[in-house]
C-alpha cells in the first residue's frame, strides 16, 4: 500500500499528542486532534489537524519531503522530513505563535534534535494514537 493510501486511510483518526523528537507541542492528552485532510503541494505534505475542543478550522502540519511513514495502532510517525511547520500553533494555548530559533519551529530535520533525542522512537514526528 502506498504512503499516500495509508495516509488517506488514517483520515478521521484522533491523536492526543503531537510530538517532534519527543517534544510535546501541547500538554499530552490535554487536547485531541483529528486528521481531517491530507494534501500535497509540491514536495510538501500538508496534514490538516482539527483541535476537537475548538471550532472546525484545522491547523496545518507541513512536512517537506517526509520519509519513513508508519501508521499503526500507536499513531502516525514520520522518521524524517527536511522541514517542518505547524501553522497557528496554538498561539492562545501556551505556545508562542512565532518563536524563531526554537528547535521545533521550521527547523531542518536532519539532526536528531536535543541531546538524547536519538533514542529509538524519539527521532520522529509522532502523533500518538489515543490509547484506551
Amino acid at each position: 500500500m502506498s504512503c499516500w493510501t495509508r495516509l488517506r486511510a488514517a483520515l478521521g483518526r484522533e491523536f492526543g499528542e503531537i510530538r517532534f523528537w519527543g517534544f510535546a507541542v501541547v500538554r499530552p492528552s490535554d487536547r485531541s486532534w483529528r486528521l481531517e485532510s491530507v494534501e500535497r503541494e509540491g514536495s510538501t505534505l500538508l496534514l490538516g489537524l482539527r483541535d476537537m475542543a475548538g471550532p472546525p478550522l484545522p491547523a496545518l502540519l507541513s512536512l517537506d519531503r517526509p520519509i519513513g511513514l508508519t501508521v499503526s495502532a500507536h499513531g502516525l510517525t514520520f522518521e524524517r522530513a527536511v522541514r517542518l511547520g505547524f501553522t497557528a500553533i496554538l498561539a492562545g494555548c501556551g505556545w508562542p505563535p512565532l518563536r524563531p530559533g526554537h528547535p521545533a519551529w521550521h527547523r531542518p530535520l536532519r539532526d536528531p534534535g536535543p541531546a538524547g533525542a536519538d533514542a529509538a522512537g524519539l527521532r520522529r514526528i509522532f502523533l500518538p494514537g489515543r490509547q484506551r
Partner: protein
Amino acid sequence: MKTPLARPVLPTLLFALILAGCGGGGSSGLQPQIAASAEVLQPGDAGYERAVIGSAVKAAGQGGVSEGMVIRIVQDIPVWRMWNGPARLDARGNTNRMGGWWSYDPPKGTVQQYRAAYEICNGWNDLTWVAKCTLKAGSIVVVGPGQSVSAQTCGDPTGLENYAANPVDWQLYIDKPWARSAELVCPDASADYEADPAYISASQEERFRTQP
C-alpha cells in the same frame, strides 16, 4: 503542658499518614479529599472504558499520571483548571480553558509552585487564569499522581526545564471534556479569575484589596 501530648499524637499522625498513603488514600486507594465523593471502578465495570485511562497514564518523563485509577463520581465536586485567559486566542479563536487535565484541590501557592506540582511546561500553559467547574455525580474519570516531565518533552534544549513526579498533588483526567457538558459543568468564563502569580488562590483584585 504540651510536651506530654507529643507522644500519643505522633503514632496517631503516623497511622493517619499510612492510612492516607502519604498522598494515597484509605481502603479505596483514593486521597481523603475525594474518597467520599468517588468510587473506584475496575476493568470490566460498566463505564470503565469511558475514562480512557490509556490516555492518562504515561511513562516517566512523558507527563500525565504515573498510575491511575478509574473512578465514578458519586456526588458533585468542584474541580479547577488554570488556563491562559480569555485574551489569548489562537488563530481559530480558541482558548485553552477546556482540556483534559484538572485538579480537585484548589490552586494554591505561586504559579511556579503550581507548575512544579502539576508538571506543566512553560510552553503548554501560561497558568494565568483559574476556572472552577463542577464534576457531576456519575462522571467517570481517571485520577492519579502526576508523572514526571523531561526537558525533552518540554522542548527545552538546555535541559533545565523538567519536572519531577509528584505523589502528593493528584490530577484528574477528563477525557474530551468539551464533549461532556453534562458531566463537567462550567460557568461562563466571566466567572473565572485572573490569578495573582504570587498567590494563585486569590484573584489579583482580591490580593490588591487585602494587601496594605
